[in-house]
């Protein structure tokens, strides 16, 4: 029997859901509004909500003072590059652990996850020194490597879980049907794993895009992505709230657009296998 829910409860629950949804969204909305205020209005007490003097001056200043497109391009290259490299390593790794496990597979998986438990600041100095000696400080390649390594455990875990979900019988059926390993990959495994691959790539891209610790510490100008661009607006002379908001809005815009268009894939991928 279906549970009975009174209309009043539906109203209350719906109201509460909207309230909490709005609460979560508020900082982003506020940032967006602030980016159109003057520096003076950004500080105003009591704060103004919608009725202020709208201006796009902050965006112009931000672009002229620190080149937005330069940083955005860096973010794209670093996030995209680290995602691609991570996938190249993770797909075969997850494949072999899912389909040809050994006695040690469980241990390897746990060990990989354990590396994520260490605070990154613990290895900042050695990594910095290594990067300096190799001459890859403030290079995109250097950032791609470190972000890729950082996200690799999660990527392999996610792919491993997806591959595990694929019934072995189907791969055996393909073998009986005469498919070679290569054809099995192309015609059977990959099409079945597409939702998993897509959501893993997306998540990895978002993680790399938002990553601030390593990007702030290992880059200055040439390879600096949007995180550095935002941070440059919190300066010793004080905070420029309106300009900081404009910079932040610009920085998150691409990822919000990407997330918006792929939200269904993302949710499907993350809950894949939870319900048969």
């Amino acid at each position: 029997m279906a549970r009975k829910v009174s209309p009043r409860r539906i109203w209350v629950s719906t109201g509460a859901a909207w309230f909490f949804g709005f609460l979560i969204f508020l900082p982003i909305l506020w940032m967006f509004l602030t980016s159109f205020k003057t520096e003076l209005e950004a500080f105003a007490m009591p704060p103004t909500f919608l009725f202020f003097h709208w201006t796009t001056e902050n965006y112009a200043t931000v672009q002229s003072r620190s080149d937005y497109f330069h940083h955005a391009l860096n973010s794209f290259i670093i996030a995209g590059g680290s995602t691609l490299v991570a996938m190249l390593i993770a797909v075969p790794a997850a494949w072999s652990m899912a389909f040809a496990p050994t006695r040690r597979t469980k241990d390897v998986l746990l060990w990989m996850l354990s590396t994520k438990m260490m605070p990154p600041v613990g290895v900042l100095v050695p990594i910095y020194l290594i990067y300096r000696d190799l001459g890859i400080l403030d290079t995109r390649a250097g950032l791609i490597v470190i972000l890729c390594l950082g996200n690799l455990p999660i990527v392999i875990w996610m792919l491993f879980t997806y591959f595990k979900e694929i019934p072995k019988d189907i791969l055996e059926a393909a073998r009986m049907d005469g498919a070679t390993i290569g054809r099995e990959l192309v015609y059977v495994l990959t099409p079945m794993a597409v939702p998993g691959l897509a959501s893993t790539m997306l998540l990895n891209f978002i993680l790399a895009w938002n990553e601030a610790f390593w990007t702030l510490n290992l880059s200055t100008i040439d390879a600096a992505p949007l995180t550095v661009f935002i941070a440059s607006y919190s300066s010793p002379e004080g905070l420029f709230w309106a300009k900081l908001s404009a910079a932040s809005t610009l920085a998150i815009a691409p990822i919000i657009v990407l997330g918006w268009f792929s939200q269904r894939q993302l949710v499907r991928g993350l809950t894949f296998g939870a319900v048969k």
Partner: protein
Amino acid sequence: MGQITLQGVRKSFGPVNIIKDANLDIENGSFVVFVGPSGCGKTTLLRLIAGLEDVTGGQILIDGRNVVDVPPAKRGLSMVFQSYALYPHMSVRGNIAFGLKMAGLPRAEIDRKVEAAAATLNLTPYLDRKPRELSGGQRQRVAIGRAIVREPKAFLFDEPLSNLDAALRVQMRMEVTKLQKQLATTAVYVTHDQVEAMTMADKIVVLNAGGIEQYGSPLELYERPANLFVAGFIGSPRMNFVSGEAAARHGAVTIGIRPEHLKIGQEAEGWPGTVSVAEHLGSDTFLYVDAGKLGMLTCRYVGELDLKAGDRVSLSPDPARLHRFDKEGMAMRA
């Protein structure tokens, strides 16, 4: 042609011997069923024939050629899996055509063969559907279609009906048997269900703990079980076993009597007992009789018998249908 011969086939996983020295001759065109309790190695034996597992020792000959080093696809066999194992992202057409596509057949020929297989299995209206849009029985048919379209030397079935409900299972059982006779292709069929084995097989292989206990036609197994295990496994309800003095009188350590070969009377002769449960099915009556020292005996009476729990009965075995076993549990022939 599809003659399969196993010669001293062994399979171990680490120190565990799953299959111990299996020897078997499967004639071309016959329907052979591997039956046995779970864990007896029947699925492993099938997978060894398929090539999905490598043998530890021995030879597997298909039409006289040793195939132990031949990959699964090159053995000319096709397999139907318990889970159907359909490709979820392909249409029914794609599923059936996949093997032909891998074999590199021309498009027109693939289409023709797929259409023909679909027509045989009543799948024509569903050719463009995805597996998830089909019922269990239809999925099973697609899996069979995928197997027949390749015109293999033999079909291998791994408990293909166990995911279906009872009514559908009976129907599919007949369809599979009919199809196999019509195509006259060798079939090796694994099941744990002895009714499936008895009804479908030309010959049954009874497996237990990795060894072949007996190989013969269903009625041979029923009439002349080679040992206690086969005697107890084949036939439903299972055979009654009696040992001790009653068996010694027949010169055996254990005697076996099938429930249908126990005569029920109320006279003094025979084994006295008390009915503990009576099941009235209309066509048959099953009695579970507490026969004191002899233990619980099951009896089957064709037709209706007006007895209920607590009634005293006397049971006498049909001497011509009595099975005698020695102390190793092997059948003693007169």
